[in-house]
Structures are given as C-alpha cells and as structure tokens.
C-alpha cells in the first residue's frame, strides 16, 4: 500500500521515471517482458475444484468420518448388514447435500454480469513511428502502460493520473460511498489520505462516471488494491457456528461411547465369561449409539429450508449457513442500499437563513435544465425533484442565451437565460 502512496506523492515525470515508462507508453517488446515478469492482470478468484474432488470433500467432515469408521467396526465384527446401512446413509445424505449446493452455486454463477474487458492502451511502435492507441484485453496490461479512460470505462488496473478532465469515478465498490469521487492529475501533498481517498489514483474495480483521463498503470493483478482484498478472501473458510455445533455434538456422542462401550464390555465379560462375545457385543453397542440418520436428516431439513427460502427471495449457496442464519444475533450491514435507497435526491432548498425557499429551487432547476454538459447525479436529482413540484414548469417561458460550463478551476457552472434576464450559478 505504501507503494500507492509513494506514486501519489510524486510529480508525473518522477512517476514515469520510477516505472521506466514515458508519455508515449511502453515499447511492445518491453511490455512483453513485463507481462512475463508481473503476470496477467487478473485477480485471484475462487478456483473450481474438479467435480469429483468437490464431491469427495463432502465426506471429509466429522460426521461422515465417524459413521464410516463405525461401519468398518461393524464390518469387521461380522455385522455386514449394519455396515451396509451406515455406508448407504452416509452416501445418500452426502450426495443430496452435494447436489443441493452444486445447483445453487450454479445458479449464483449464472447471475453474474459480464463486464467489458478491453482497455485502451498507448504503446510505442517501431523506433521513429508514432505511438499507437490500441484496444486490448485488460489482462494484458503491465505496470508502466499508458491508458486512456473515458466515461463508462472500467478502470483496468491501479492507475496514477497523468492528465484528467472533469474525471468523476464511482468507487462505491471499494468504499461504499455512493457519490462519485472527483480525481485529478496533480501531485498529492497530503499524507493523511486513506488509500481510496487518494485524489490522483484510480483503482481497479471502480469505474468512470464522467470525464476523460490519461493515466499510467502502477500496479496490476494481485498487486492492486482490489487484488489485495480479493486474495485475502480466497481460500478455506473458517468453521462457522453450525459446523462447530455438529462437531461438539459428535464429541458428545464419542464421550458417551467411551463410557458405555468399555462398561458393556466389562459387564458382559464378567457376567458371561465369554470375552470374545463381549467384545463383539460392545462394538455393536458403539454402532447402535451412532446417529446414523443424522447427516441424512440434517440434509433433508436444510434442503427443505433452502427451498422454502428460495420462495422468499433468498438463495442459499451453502446449506450450513441456514442454521447460522437462525442463530445470528448480530447483523452487520453496510449502509448504502440497505438503509438507504442508493440514489441521490434533492431534499432541501433553502435561503441563506435555512428556510425553505422555492426561488432557490427554481434557479437550480434552470441551471440543471439548460446546461448542455453531461448531466451528473446531482443535476438529475434537481430535475427529478423539480418535476415532482409541477408548479415550476414555467421554464417554457425562459430562453437560453449562453452558458459557462463547469471546470475544476472555478468549480462553478452558470447558464444565462432570458425572461427577465436572470443569470444563475
């Protein structure tokens, strides 16, 4: 992360030097070398194990293991039928659980939206010929590449801006902040910014709302801020409360067995004097104590729950999560979209004393209505709000004369309209 701060605090020329790049981009050959060194610009994602292994791994949990080992005991003590029943139960319940989870993870996958995977990159051609802008797969980007950004683009890697015009970026996927963030190319002097707040860095996984920019790639793939988050969540999940509960229950059964089985063995041995038979009988008791139907019943219950929940707009990806759902006593949630509507609306229009004033809304409406640039979220909010208040539809009587568009030096925007010659900012 310090790397990102470092690039943020450098002048553009120094950034390019540090990355051994130039305004004209990288020579094709150098890009190839870097691709070999840094790897593809892709973020680690959950690797799918082969189906067969996924199925096998369903057996590697405490309950099936306990039951299967008891079936071995039954088998070696001549209880073939008991052994058969246990193995059958384990197999049935595990298959059922596997089928259920496989189906729901497939449906989750089909929900995935496809995103554009091309980036517009500047690469040097042969010596002497001018640099060319080419459209290429995002995965081919390397540190040092110069990329062009325009409205609607996904940001393909972590970038340091070289120049930017009216660039607004939606970083909500990184920060949860729904308002677009403004970015500019200037050197960053402050050191107190948290990473996503850095004003001259754009992050992989976010996207451009409006404006255009040229930027140099400072990190790709797993080295990006996004990649560092992604890689921290790929891997084995911790045991959840339900899994721990099942494990504790199995230990309870094992403890009971550890008391019962030797007791049965000793009592039978002493009373009847036939120690071999006592041993067989004791192992039969162990098998009898085993909750052989448990995995089956748990799975039936969970699958039934998953079905009931899918009717209530809840898709269960992992069956064991259902119980955790019921056991949950704290629900943590993000704010945007859960508590809020995830859109910007105009809520107040007040005069300088904080009292509601329709004239202010009228001016704001004229400005948003007549400005000819890209209408941002705020403009839309103004227009929508004003449209609810129909009485402001007197704009027909205005005629647009001129406008002074927004820019980042002034950070203002004006339109000039004709009626009684109002002019508003």
């Amino acid at each position: 992360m310090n790397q990102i701060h470092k690039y943020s605090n450098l002048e553009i020329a120094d950034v390019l030097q540090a990355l051994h790049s130039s305004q004209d981009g990288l020579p094709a050959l150098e890009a190839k070398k870097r691709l070999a060194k840094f790897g593809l610009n892709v973020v680690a994602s959950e690797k799918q194990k082969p189906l067969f292994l996924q199925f096998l791994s369903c057996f590697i949990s405490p309950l099936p293991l306990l039951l299967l080992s008891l079936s071995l005991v039954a088998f070696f003590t001549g209880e073939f039928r008991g052994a058969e029943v246990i193995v059958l139960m384990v197999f049935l319940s595990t298959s059922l659980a596997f089928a259920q989870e496989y189906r729901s993870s497939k449906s989750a996958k089909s929900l995935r939206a496809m995103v554009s995977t091309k980036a517009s990159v500047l690469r040097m051609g042969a010596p002497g010929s001018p640099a060319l802008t080419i459209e290429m797969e995002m995965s081919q980007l390397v540190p040092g590449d110069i990329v062009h950004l325009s409205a609607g683009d996904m940001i393909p890697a972590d970038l340091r801006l070289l120049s930017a015009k009216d660039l607004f970026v939606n970083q909500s996927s990184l920060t949860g902040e729904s308002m677009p963030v403004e970015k500019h190319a200037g050197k960053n002097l402050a050191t107190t910014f948290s990473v996503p707040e850095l004003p001259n860095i754009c992050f992989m996984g976010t996207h451009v709302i409006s404006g255009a920019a040229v930027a140099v790639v400072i990190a790709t793939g797993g080295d990006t801020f996004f990649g560092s988050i992604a890689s921290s969540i790929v891997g084995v999940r911790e045991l959840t409360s339900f899994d721990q509960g099942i494990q504790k229950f199995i230990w309870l059964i094992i403890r009971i067995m550890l008391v019962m089985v030797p007791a049965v063995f000793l009592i039978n041995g002493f009373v009847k004097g036939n120690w071999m038979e006592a041993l067989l009988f004791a192992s039969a008791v162990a098998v009898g104590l085993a909750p052989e139907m448990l995995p089956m019943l748990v799975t039936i219950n969970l699958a039934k729950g998953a079905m009931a929940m899918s009717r209530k707009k809840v898709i269960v990806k992992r069956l064991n999560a259902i119980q955790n759902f019921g056991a949950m006593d704290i629900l943590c949630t993000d704010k945007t979209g859960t508590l809020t509507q995830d859109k910007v609306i105009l809520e107040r229009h007040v005069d300088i004393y904080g009292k509601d004033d329709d004239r202010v809304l009228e001016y704001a409406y004229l400005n948003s209505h007549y400005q000819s640039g890209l209408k941002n979220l705020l403009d839309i909010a103004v227009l929508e709000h004003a449209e609810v208040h129909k009485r402001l539809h007197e704009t027909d009587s205005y005629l647009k004369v001129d406008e002074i568009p927004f820019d980042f030096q002034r950070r203002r925007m004006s339109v000039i309209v004709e009626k009684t010659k109002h002019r508003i900012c």
Partner: protein
Amino acid sequence: MEEIFSVCDRVQKSSGALTLKPLHIEEVNRVVNDLNEDGFRVIAVAYKEVSSDQLVYEPKDESNLILSGYIAFLDPPKESAAPAIASLLQYGVEVKILTGDNEVVSRKICHDVGLSVDRIMLGSQIEAMTDLELANKAEAATIFAKLSPQQKARVIHALQSKNHVVGFMGDGINDGPALKAADVGISVDTAVDIAKESADIILLEKNLLVIKEGIIEGRKVFGNIIKYIRMSASSNFGNMFSVLGASAFLPFLPMAPVQILFNNLLYDFSQTSVATDTVDEEYLSQPRKWEIANISRYILTIGPISSIFDYLTFGLMWFIFDCTTPERAGLFQTAWFVESLLSQTLIVHVLRTGKIPFLQSKPSLPLLITTVVICIIGAYLPYSALAPALQMTALPSIFWLYLVIILVVYLGLTQMAKAYLIRRFGLD
C-alpha cells in the same frame, strides 16, 4: 461552496438583495454547517440580472452575484428500513452498521431509521486498538464508520470472540473480507462477483425484511434438526442402556438382530417427517444456538427414563408372561419390539415442543400421520404374514392393556422431566 461565495457580493433576503457583510458570513457558515451535520451535500445557488444586449458570456462575468440560498442532497433512508430494524430487534437480532462512508452521513441515516447513534467507532480508532480492546468495545457500538475492508472483518471477528453469531450483508468489493469472516455472509444478486463468491446467501432483493423471513426459516430448520438430534440420541442412548442390562442377565437376546434392523428402519422413517414439523412461536422469537450442554442433559435424562420402561417391559415378560427360557424368547422379543417402537415413535410428540403436546402445540399433519401409521404397523406386525420372517409371535390381548399403561406413564413422566429441564436450564 467557497467557489460561489467568492463571486458573490450580495445576499438574497425576502426584503431584497443586501450587501454581503461579515455578519452574513457567520450566518452562512452556521446554516451550511447545520446542513452538513445532517448528512447533506450542499451546493450554493446565486444569480444576477444582466442586460439583454450581451450575447456571449465568459467566466469573468461570474461576479457580483447575489447569493440566493442552497440546495441540499441526500441518499435518503428506505421507508422499509426502520420497521425492518425494529422487527429484527424483536426477533433478537441487533443491527450494526459497518460502512466505509463518513460518520456524519452515517449518523444521520442511522438516526432516521431508529438506530442508536450514541456509540460511533471510526476506522482510525479501531486501528489503534488491540483485538481484545476492540472486542470489549465493539459490542456496545452501533455504528462503525470510515472502515477499510480489513477493519470490517476485524470488527466481525471481535464480535464473534464475544460468542456472538454474526451475519454480514454487503455487496461491494470492500465487503469481501467481511462476508468471508461472518458466520453468515449475505449478498445481493446485483452485487459484484467477488461479494457473491464470498457469500453464503444471496438475496434477490436488498431488503432487511427479506432477511427477517430468512432468519425465521433458519430457526425453523434448526429447531427441527435439534428436535431430531435430541430425540434420536436420547432413544439410542436409552436403547443401549436397556440392552446393556438385558444382555447381562437374560439367557437369550432381548431382540433378534433382524428385529433391531426393522425397528430402526420404521423409526427412522417416522423421523424423516420431522423436517415438516411446525416450530413453536416461542422458539422462533430468539436466536437459537447449539446448546451442547442442554442436549447432553436431554440425552442423560430422557434416555434412562425410556430405559426404565424397557426394564418394566422386561420384568413384565419375565415374571407375568413367564418368558424365562430361550424357548419363550420369541414372545419376549416381540413384546419389546412393539414397546420399543411405539414408545420411541410416540415420544416424538412430547419432545417436539416445549409445551404440552396437542393441547398447546400441534404437530404438522405429515408428522402426525407418519407416527400413527408407524405405530399401527408396529402393532400389526406380530399378527401379519411377515411375523414368521421377523421371528415374531402373536401377543396375548392382556399384554396390550399393560402396554397402554406403560406408554401412558412413560409419556407423562417424560413430559414432566422435559418441563423440569426447560424450567431449570431453559429452552434450547
């Protein structure tokens, strides 16, 4: 804001435009600060009238404006959020907000939806705390603002370390680690891939009310699983306890192997319908966790009670029906088969609820039908064509009278024991 003030020299009052004075600037700052504290994003609006002959305007014309007022923007709270949070609380689920957004906006929104805003923790404060300090403070806080993705996961781990089962709902890349850390990761189908990949549960609608429905469904499922675990573990334990005594003192097996297998088959079948059973409202009203100690008490109390009645049956057969020799083993075994199957199957109705069965809590129809059918089959088997294959003999009619007495007393005693366990140790 400042950008517009800098080009204003007058302010709009109802009486007309006045020259901007230091007094006004104070007023301006106060109003704008108030709006900002309410979580608004504020933009100033100013105007001036110009002569009609000028046709082209430049930035330098933006001068000597009259400050008219402000427009304030907000991402407004959902109408459904406040009632949803209240009803989650009723069901014993506390809602906490973990956000990357700043505390001012978060405070305002949380206030609007009825969450306590007294305790706010910031990412920078959390960064300075040890895991232990965080665990001690996180329980009391409702809002966590300006969190980095890793800090969200830390907060969840901190709450888990205080024995909470923690759910997390999020849809951003920044929510990935938290989704993974939570006991239940909840995402939405419009979320980014990485969030959906890390989630256990995906909502088709980002709405807390949908979550409440899911929670109730989850408790029903868990309730029925626990019912099954308690019942089957108790009866397994009781049976083994009975077999232990019988094997030591009887000159023959208390039940033939084929009968044991058949008994299990019928009992297991009756248990599959537990999944359809209704769950008492009281049970659904609170989060339900594994209470292994309670399960263990159940097994160690209810199991031996069932054994008492097994031994009563053994005594009955031994002393009254004179089954003391291997020749009379068939009758003995048939009697225990019937008693064992009927008692196990019927006890389901006592153990499935914390209340008085049938009077206060009714089972689901499939469960009722299955248990009745299994009992009828069990009682009929000794008289059926299968009897020789199962090594069964017909039971004398007087046995049924004894059996009814045994079953009624058994069910009554178990109901009392269950009521005692619940009074003493609580419902699980």
